[in-house]
């Protein structure tokens, strides 16, 4: 049996420092009591740090509260904020920018990621090593890396502009990625695709590897062309995995904040102002706490719905 000294001693130390009385009563616990003592601390922590604030947010969303004026008289506004939100052009703009960002990143990442996984599944020499290399960007801090991309995107001296100009045969100072209204949305898409294509690739690869060989063997016996095999076996059988990756990326990019906040901060103008950036401006720059709470609740509900679909997709994949 594998003994891990670190895990063992840590728990032993925790056990030794548990007061005798508690230890005694723990030892005699029924399974049911153990289950609850093991689960309750986590639930309590989540209630304190997630649910209690959530309920507070719901309450605030009905009021005129402003966090920078905590002593101002509080007015109860009912659903006022929610109806204001629906007619606020800034909010609609933020949602549109977010939708475009989510759709374009997820589509590109799904195509590239699946393509890469399909190639890696050919099991060429050294595929393990190169897979690990490809995975590195997705583990890095989007904020810190996003900040450095502003340097790569510098007009003229930036490496990105230089390379594009070099291969495109254009003047590197003739375009700027972050400053240009037409290019700025692509500047954030490019960084997101660079970071997260590996994520989609890794899950697609698992999907491809989950397809048993005998299915292909049977298809081969039936003389199905490799084109036909791809559309009738590979794609449908990998689909639950592709969906899993796509859904998770959609959720993550729907709430995208860190990379974009440092790369463009919503600019130029508001061309890259995603919902999270709008929310940050409302909540922490304009300090319209009540109003932004209502907006936060709308985002919560959307994410909650998406998370529900995601967990269903997770369970479908798990059964495989």
């Amino acid at each position, binding site marked *: 049996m594998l003994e891990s000294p670190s895990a063992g001693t840590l*728990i032993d130390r925790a056990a030794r420092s548990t007061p005798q009385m508690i230890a005694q009563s723990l*030892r005699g616990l029924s399974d049911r009591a153990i289950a609850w003592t093991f*689960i309750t601390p986590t639930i309590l922590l989540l209630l304190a740090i997630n649910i209690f604030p959530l309920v507070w947010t719901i309450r605030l969303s009905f009021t005129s509260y402003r966090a920078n004026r905590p002593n101002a008289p509080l007015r109860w506004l009912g659903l006022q904020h929610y109806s204001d939100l629906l007619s606020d052009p800034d909010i609609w703009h933020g949602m549109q920018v977010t939708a475009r960002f989510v759709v374009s990143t997820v589509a590109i990442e799904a195509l590239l990621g699946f393509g890469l996984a399909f190639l890696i599944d050919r099991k060429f020499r050294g595929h393990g090593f190169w897979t*690990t290399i*490809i*995975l590195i960007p997705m583990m890095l801090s989007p*904020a810190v890396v996003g900040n450095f991309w502003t340097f790569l995107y510098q007009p003229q001296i930036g490496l990105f502009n230089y390379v594009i100009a070099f291969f495109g045969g254009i003047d590197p100072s003739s375009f700027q990625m972050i400053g240009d209204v037409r290019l700025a949305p692509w500047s954030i898409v490019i960084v997101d695709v660079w970071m997260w294509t590996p994520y989609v690739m890794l899950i697609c690869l698992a999907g491809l590897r989950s397809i048993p060989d005998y299915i292909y063997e049977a298809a081969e016996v039936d003389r199905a062309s490799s084109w036909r095999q791809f559309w009738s076996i590979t794609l449908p059988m990998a689909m639950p995995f592709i969906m899993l990756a796509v859904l*998770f990326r959609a959720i993550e990019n729907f709430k995208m904040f860190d990379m974009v906040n440092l790369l463009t901060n919503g600019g130029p103008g508001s061309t890259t102002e995603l919902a999270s950036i709008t929310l940050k401006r409302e909540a922490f720059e304009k300090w319209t*706490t009540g109003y932004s709470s209502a907006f936060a609740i709308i985002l919560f509900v959307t994410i909650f719905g998406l998370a529900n679909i995601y967990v269903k997709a997770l369970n479908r994949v798990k059964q495989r």
Partner: protein
Amino acid sequence: MTHGTLAHSVVAPGAMSRRIAGALVILYALISMVPLVWIVLTSFKTPTDSISYPPKILFAPSLEGYVNLFTTRTRQTASFIATLPPPTTWYDRLVRSRNMVIAGPSKYVPRYLNSLVIGFGSTFLAVLLGTMTAYGFSRFKVPLKDDLLFFILSTRMMPPIAVAIPIYLMYRELGLTDTKLGMILLYTAVNVSLAVWLLKGFIDEIPREYEEAAMIDGYTRLQAFRKVVLPQAATGIAATAIFCLIFAWNEYAFAVLLTSGEAQTTPPFIPFIIGEGGQDWPAVAAGTTLFLVPIVAFTVLLRKHLLRGITFGAVRR
């Protein structure tokens, strides 16, 4: 026999297609590494080299970026510098050659230490709570189990900015704003959901018979958990811990909104590494390099478990 060759033709693609696939994947890998290589290269450039056109691939390496990262400097006249005693260290000499004098250490080291303290603190708590909860869910009949598990996971999906509004108000009331304890509790709450889901997957794989045998030998349920389950789950616990650590290390949204000084971590600090007239790119690159190196190391270490980590334990291979 025919069956064998057929299977071979499918399972192992032809040499040619394999070579093309390999070339394309390697090309992608190399291109995707360029930004990271550029960060490391920039960190060894002088400020002038870093903004030269065309971008320099070959240059005389300099540690100026790292010196600037760790120090704050003041500009002085050459005549004033001449009156000072001769420089005693190489970095003094380097800074003075730019007509500057080192004024003191920068805030990078304290911010890095904050990242370490908050990262390890929250990881420890999240893994401790997560292991217990995962064991509870894995081995016992818990009413509303699926709903509780969904609730736990859904807390991780929430947009950080939306969560930050009430947390900001709550922390202000409790005096937890800009404290390490506040950030540790917050990251623990975010990480515990991942820890529970991942560890439940790992513990589900340990046969119940092991504990049952131990309990027949006279162990109590808790002893069996400690002496049988925990050692078996050690790899899983370590992988989970690394995932939690990476999340806390990389986190930016909460950190930028809830900390400003005392408990500020590295990610919100790096964009504010500035020199005279804008960002000091070699210093930013140096700070970024030192910040990213541990993550790259952990990624290589974790490669077998990455898939599990990013799918909350659902996909195993």
